[in-house]
């Protein structure tokens, strides 16, 4: 029975290819949405992930960086610096704001660095210098390409014109790019002096980050300290939460599209095969065996679609990243596994839609000429 069903599918190879390609397109859309979301989520936390701090210290009540505001007076920074087990502290000032370039506006993390900075600044440079002096800025290379800016050009952060002196790598995201400026400029922009937003603390060789967190919170009042991994986890969770509903909606639309396409293919196949299915029933095939065969047809088409979509996505992602550098995409095994499970649901739903047609087939119609 199964052999018959499979061979029947291949009787019209063009129809089969179109069906697989159509369903694969729907799955590919889902994979790309997920890939973009995963990539962008990772880019949102790029700064937290890449700077070399062991412990992050911030205002009490704050537990992440994305979209957050934190103020710590300078004297508390000095307090932390003097604690035993602390190998280094770099204080940054931080502002979520819109950066204007011509008539374009970009939401950005603006990080004010105490220069010279050892580990709180850009971690990879494409061009220019990494340590911005007063009146200077380091911007993402992708950002500069998109806005047609280069070293020596200016951009505006709120009311301040800054000259671009360096182009950093891995710091661009559609949601928020990271722009580095001198802390003095940012203090001036924010009219907030003698404060920091976050302390990036390096632990000494004999102290673990967890021990240091406890020591800082015991010694310095009204601050919140987190290990770098906890802080990253908090930011990543927040980034994921922000897009979950959108991605869920996109996945639902993609899945519905795939269900429609696979169901239409299976339904068409059943309708085309009505006569042969009636003959099979007349010869002794049960409804159950026909359902199973049709369901397996659906699973076969869907599985092929998922494989085609996954291979296409794997081939497309690097090319897309080169072609559209503004978009960061990540294809994960979890994402493919999720699509495969979704595919199974699609196949079963599509097969169920044809079950009624099979049940209603009259075996006696095999006698009709």
């Amino acid at each position, binding site marked *: 029975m199964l052999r018959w069903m499979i061979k029947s599918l291949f009787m019209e190879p063009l129809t089969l290819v179109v069906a697989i390609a159509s369903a694969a397109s729907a799955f590919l859309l889902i994979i790309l949405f997920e890939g973009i979301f995963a990539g962008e989520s990772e880019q949102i936390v790029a700064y937290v992930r890449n700077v070399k701090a062991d412990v992050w210290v911030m205002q009490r009540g704050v537990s992440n960086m994305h979209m957050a505001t934190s103020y710590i007076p300078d004297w508390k920074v000095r307090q932390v610096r003097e604690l035993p087990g602390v190998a280094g502290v770099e204080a940054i000032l931080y502002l979520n704001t819109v950066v204007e370039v011509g008539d374009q506006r970009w939401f950005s993390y603006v990080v004010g660095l105490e220069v010279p900075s050892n580990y709180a600044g850009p971690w990879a440079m494409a061009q220019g210098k990494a340590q911005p002096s007063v009146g200077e800025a380091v911007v993402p290379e992708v950002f500069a390409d998109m806005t047609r800016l280069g070293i020596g050009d200016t951009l505006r952060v709120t009311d301040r014109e800054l000259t671009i002196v360096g182009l950093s790598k891995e710091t661009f995201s559609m949601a928020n790019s990271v722009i580095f400026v001198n802390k003095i400029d940012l203090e001036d922009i924010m009219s907030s002096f003698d404060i920091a937003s976050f302390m990036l603390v390096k632990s000494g060789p004999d102290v673990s980050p967890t021990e240091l967190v406890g020591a800082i919170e015991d010694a310095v009042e009204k601050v919140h300290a987190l290990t770098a991994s906890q802080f990253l986890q908090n930011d990543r969770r927040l980034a994921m939460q922000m897009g979950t509903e959108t991605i869920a909606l996109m996945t639902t639309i993609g899945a519905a599209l795939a269900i429609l396409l696979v169901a239409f293919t299976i339904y068409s196949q059943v309708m085309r095969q009505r006569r042969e299915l009636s*003959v*099979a029933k007349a*010869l002794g095939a049960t409804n159950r065996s026909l359902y199973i065969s049709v369901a397996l047809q659906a699973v076969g088409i869907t599985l092929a679609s998922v494989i085609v979509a996954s291979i296409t996505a794997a081939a497309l992602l690097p090319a897309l990243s080169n072609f559209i550098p503004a978009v960061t995409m990540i294809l994960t095994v979890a994402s493919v596994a999720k699509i495969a499970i979704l595919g199974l649901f699609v196949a079963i739903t599509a097969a169920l839609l044809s079950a009624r047609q099979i049940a209603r087939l*009259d075996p*006696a119609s095999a006698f009709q000429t």
Partner: protein
Amino acid sequence: MKEKVVLQAENLVKTFGSGHTEVRAVDDVSLSLKQGELVLVMGPSGSGKTTMLSILGGLLRPTSGQVFIDGTNISALSESKLPMIRARSVGFIFQAFNLLDALTVEENILFPARLIRGGQKEAAVRAADLIERLKLGPRRTALPQTLSGGEKQRVAIARALINAPPLILADEPTGNLDSTSGQEVMMILHDIARDEGRSIILVTHDPRVEDVADRILWLEDGALRDRKAEKHAWVRDPVCGMRVDEWTAQLSSTYEGQSYHFCAQRCLERFEEEPTRYVKCSPGEQDRTASSGAIN
């Protein structure tokens, strides 16, 4: 020794619709079929032959009455049990062959065997034997679309026999065949009944088949009746020259106001392509055989 009854039908009635639109397609039909018997069911179009065949094969439930196949009352069986009865106990042969297009000759023959659990090796041996006997060896891996009408019907016969059912139900098995292939198919069915002891019910309009039948039943208005002598009016198929019963012939064509009757679709198609070739010099009337009337 008492001959085994393979099929017993008792007071079968099948009605469609209700009230003013009620049609009694099968009307109180009773019949029995012994092992090895080949019974012809004839009758005019719309007389209920195919409906009766569907009921006898467990494809359609009668409104009332009972059908026993090999002693099992199939009318009392649930829907879920009927497919297995059809697969094991009944072999179907259709006018339109009804082979599965995607499967090869051998796979088509083995199809009903694969609907039954176990015995696949034995079925493969039987299939090989049937392929040999029905001269399908060179076509074993061919797809149905590449077969001639006669070959298709031989495949359908082999498929009907693969599970060695005691009962074969054939609906117009020669209806889509030319005279030579039709004759060949009839001889195969005759041999199956005589040599293998299979019981065959054969619905047909083809009067040539009468020669091989053990019994002939006449179905009219859904009921079995005595066939009247005047029910035959033999004429010759203008294409192949075979005799055709003018009154029951299913394939007819009109040319220059005159009706012509044909033994097979192929003859009809040839006639319609070039009627002047076959009408010749006597367009007024289709050549009639020496006598009109019933045979046997």
